């Protein structure tokens, strides 16, 4: 599971792991904005950005190959749009689109791999992201694992009753849609159960997230130096 791996990465103790989540989120935002506005033909800037990310991954003690491979998850989407641009006669734009989306994904993975989810959510909340969005992300992350386990069990149960025979495609499609409906109904039931459990412990509509991190001088220095370096690379 991807998110279990990210959890494990997030438990590290590198200098990057120790930085306050807010400093890393702001640095990531600066990186993404500058990357998005970098001209497609500015190869030197893109190479510098890639080198910066690779150095950060190594400093964080994350597996470089693992991060780069997992960032490929974005390629099916960006390659599709890249292909459209290529066919429209803009090969440079197509290449830039793929490069930028890939580097952006690496940067996001770097943040997720050096910040545990509770700290990341706490950081987002303190930076002013609406609490509702933070909560939705939290619940999605928490129950993704439970739901995926349920769907895996359903797949196994279906496979056990296949008896080695391959059913007609139409039947398999109907079975898959039925399983999806069951999964949805179960998720709905679970959501009701969670709400009841929350009510039973006095939930009155306001959620509290523990904030362990303090934004210190080192965090400010990290945030400002990374941002300044990125701006210098972009304009210089």
């Amino acid at each position, binding site marked *: 599971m991807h998110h279990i791996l990210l959890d494990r990465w997030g438990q590290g103790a590198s200098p990057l792991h120790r930085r306050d989540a807010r400093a890393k989120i702001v640095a990531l935002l600066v990186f993404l904005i500058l990357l998005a506005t970098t001209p497609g033909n500015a190869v030197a800037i893109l190479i510098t950005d890639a080198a910066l990310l690779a150095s950060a991954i190594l400093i964080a003690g994350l597996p470089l190959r693992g991060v780069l491979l997992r960032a490929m998850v974005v390629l099916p989407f960006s390659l599709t749009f890249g292909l459209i641009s290529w066919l429209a006669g803009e090969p440079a734009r197509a290449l830039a689109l793929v490069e930028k989306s890939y580097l952006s994904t690496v940067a996001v993975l770097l943040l997720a791999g050096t910040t545990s989810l509770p700290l990341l*959510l706490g950081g987002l909340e303190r930076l002013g992201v609406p609490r509702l969005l933070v909560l939705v992300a*939290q619940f999605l992350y928490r129950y993704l694992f*439970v739901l995926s386990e349920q769907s895996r069990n359903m797949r196994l149960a279906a496979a056990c009753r296949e008896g080695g025979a391959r059913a007609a495609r139409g039947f398999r499609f109907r079975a898959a849609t039925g399983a999806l409906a069951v999964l949805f109904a179960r998720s709905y039931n679970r959501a009701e*159960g969670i709400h009841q459990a929350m009510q039973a*412990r006095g*939930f009155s509509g306001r959620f509290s997230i*523990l904030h362990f991190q303090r934004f210190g001088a080192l965090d400010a220095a990290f945030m400002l130096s990374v941002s300044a370096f990125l701006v210098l690379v972009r304009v210089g």
Partner: protein
Amino acid sequence: MTPLIEVRDLHFQYEDGTKALEGINFTLLPGETVALLGANGSGKTTFVLQLNGVLRGTGSITVCGLPLTKETLPQIRSKIGMVFQDSDEQLFMPTVLDDLTFGLLNQGVPEQEAIAKSKLALQQAGLAHVWNKAPYHLSAGEKRRVALAGVLVMEPEILVLDEPTTFLDPPAERDLLQLLSELPQAKLIVTHNVRLASALATRAVFFERGQLVASGSVDEIARRFGWNYADLPAADLRYSAQRRF
């Protein structure tokens, strides 16, 4: 002796029209542990969800002398600690510590105090080492104990446990039983597990089609309703299995 819980003429119907509870009268006295026995769908869980206002029927419910109303709900919810059947539904926060502090922060306890109390509760449950873990990294037994700790940290006067031994292997079940037997609170235990009921409960009540039809000792109720399958001769079990399939 003033009852901790007093329920009079409780009725409840689900939105689809299913009558889940019909005229329930029930009393829980201080120090009592009552096992709620009955078939699936007989109304046991629906009943306990009424006690802290998660579900609302008609009739009267008094908890620790407080009538259950919208105004008294926060007080009543701090007096009744409820451990749900599925720990995954109860442990919804990103880490164990976040989950334990959830109830305390809702009660208005300051953050640092909530953290200290929660860590102590985890220590008492023998799980001090899991405070920063995500709940899905825990075993079923650990989840159940964390769920219990999350309720105990709120210092409730009454504990309600819905099928506490579901998904537990025998060692985890034994550990939980030991932990529960040491807790001083009055308890309501929804269970099919007669062994658990016998070990912990001072009394049992039996639910049938939304009605509370009998009250007595665990042995008496289990025998009367054929609830203790260990008592059945093997031939009866074979007959029962043949009839079903």
